């Protein structure tokens, strides 16, 4: 196998090209962008959406979509903080409870999709609303403070040179690598691609497609639970208003990362690049002192450009 064959096909390099271009532009136009400390910061800023986007990628690979991800994450963070702060549960147990609830939501999504064959869009729109309402009702719409210090550990940082790396960022990267390994190197991971690529063929070959789908939704719920913990660690509180925009952010990261919304095609590391692209844009534009409305405008243009560069470079390569 030649070196050329070992490299990922160009289609998977797209998000990385966009990332590099953005970095160069911001590096030239601002003073503080190209510092290790700033990159460490950006990673911290994307870690919550980054972990949610792992779950979202899995679901999109099966040709589904999950609108509930952010709200489920918010519910999980309320559960774990309230259980710890109000009922005095030991943090580890409280965390487990929170993750259990998000996983349960994943299970419910998965059962509705596989058993009753409902479209994932509608199912997760429904559970989005349900998770939101439960979050509001259970928290009385109050932010949960008094979160025990030990639950915040993932938000702490350690020094590498002059930059501060959060433990949560390390966890995020580890999760990406694990998901990558799973999708690439195990049978069950390959079946996720197969189900998304041609569900009927996958079924005829004798793979239990429903079980694959269900496990993907459950696993996504698990990732949302870990994101709950990360958001608690990052903010220090349980925030009942969180999670409202994370679904669009996560889907954007997935699509920017080159995964097809029609399922079966994509690489999960692209999602990480996609999430970072969004973080870099926001950070760089703020550093440039662009005012907030113009930030929205420029983000709109840059998102389109990022994918266009990718597409055009691929065309050129043909």
């Amino acid at each position: 196998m030649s070196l050329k064959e070992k490299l990922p096909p160009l289609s998977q390099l797209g998000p990385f090209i966009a990332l590099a271009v953005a970095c160069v532009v911001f590096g030239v136009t601002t003073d503080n962008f190209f510092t290790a400390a700033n990159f460490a910061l950006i990673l911290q800023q994307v870690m919550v959406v980054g972990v949610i986007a792992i779950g979202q990628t899995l679901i999109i690979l099966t040709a589904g979509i999950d609108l509930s991800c952010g709200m489920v994450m918010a519910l999980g963070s309320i559960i774990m903080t309230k259980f710890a702060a109000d009922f005095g549960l030991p943090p580890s147990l409280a965390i487990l409870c929170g993750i259990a609830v998000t996983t349960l939501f994943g299970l419910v999504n998965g059962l509705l999709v596989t058993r009753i064959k409902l479209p994932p869009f509608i199912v997760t729109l429904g559970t989005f609303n349900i998770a939101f309402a439960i979050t509001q009702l259970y928290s009385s719409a109050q932010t949960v403070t008094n979160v025990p210090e030990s639950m915040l550990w993932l938000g702490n940082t350690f020094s590498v040179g002059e930059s501060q790396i959060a433990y949560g960022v390390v966890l995020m990267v580890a999760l990406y690598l694990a998901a990558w390994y799973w999708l690439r190197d195990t049978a069950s991971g390959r079946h996720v691609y197969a189900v998304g690529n041609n569900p009927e063929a996958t079924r005829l070959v004798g793979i239990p497609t429903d079980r694959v789908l269900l496990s993907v939704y459950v696993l996504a719920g698990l990732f949302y639970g870990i994101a709950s913990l990360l958001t608690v660690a990052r903010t220090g509180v349980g925030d009942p208003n969180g999670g409202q925009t994370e679904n669009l952010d996560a889907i954007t990261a997935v699509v920017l990362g080159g995964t097809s919304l029609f399922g079966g095609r994509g690489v999960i590391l692209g999602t990480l690049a996609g999430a970072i692209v969004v973080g870099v844009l926001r950070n760089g534009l703020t550093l440039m002192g662009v005012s907030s409305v113009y930030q929205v405008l420029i983000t709109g243009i840059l998102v389109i450009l990022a994918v266009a560069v990718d597409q055009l470079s691929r065309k050129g390569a043909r």
Partner: protein
Amino acid sequence: AGEPVIGLITKTETNPFFVKMKEGAQAEAKKLGAKLMTASGKKDGDTAAQITAIENMVTAGAKTILITSSGDAIIPAVKKAQAKGVQVIALDSPFEGADALFATDNYKAGVLIGQYAKAALGNKPAKIAMLDLFPGHPVGAQRHNGFMTGFGLKANDAKSNELSSTPETVCAADTDGNQAKGQTAMENCLQKDPNINVVYTINEPAAAGAYNALKKAGKEKGVIIVSVDGGCAGVADVGKGVIAATSQQYPLKMAAMGVAAGVEYAKGGKKASGYVDTGVTLIAGKAVPGVDSKDVKTGTDLCWGTK
């Protein structure tokens, strides 16, 4: 390069309240020779975006950050910024640990319009429609519960984020603070009970929508609409009789004070502190006995807090 950098973070981009706040800060910054950076969340409650903005502004060299908090989730980020010597001032919405708070009392704003509505209604039995923001929003809850307290109904205190209800509040619906949705909400409430005679609205666009609905149903006479904000458009609506009374607040003032404090800190190293109430004034088309109010002329002069 020598000019002090001040950051302003609002809840959203769209609410005229925050847009005015930004304008006020911009004007003051220009006057005092400071550089202003701005950012905001995508939605009300989008604390994640606010935290990110705090961090990015600190990296960009801001020495003072003014923020209308979307929730207490921003506190650790604020603490980290403060640890780096940044002054953080809360505008409009209080949170723990801010160096100073320049704000208005939303609960009190609610109480004022509640008292006004009660007095204006007189002895008639009240049938109230509550046109709220959306579930779980502290400002929404404070105005809502304040209104009910002022009206003499039993309601939660200023700390609660839950919306109270009593038999008098015959209908409640969310508006997102948006005119079209305010209109839809009011239409549905009128279907539920055509005899509604008091309408509480979360802000003036929602009030304008409610008025539209009433007018289409031919019921705009004899229904008391009260609201909060006191924006120029809202005060004009009070003048036209669309809104009976509104509690006026002063975002421009908050912003200007914040920027001034930022410049002061940059020059002298003295941080601002404490709570400065920028005040609430009840603006009413027709004064009613027993309730202090200012007329539309005063309200127009003061709208959004122009000095």
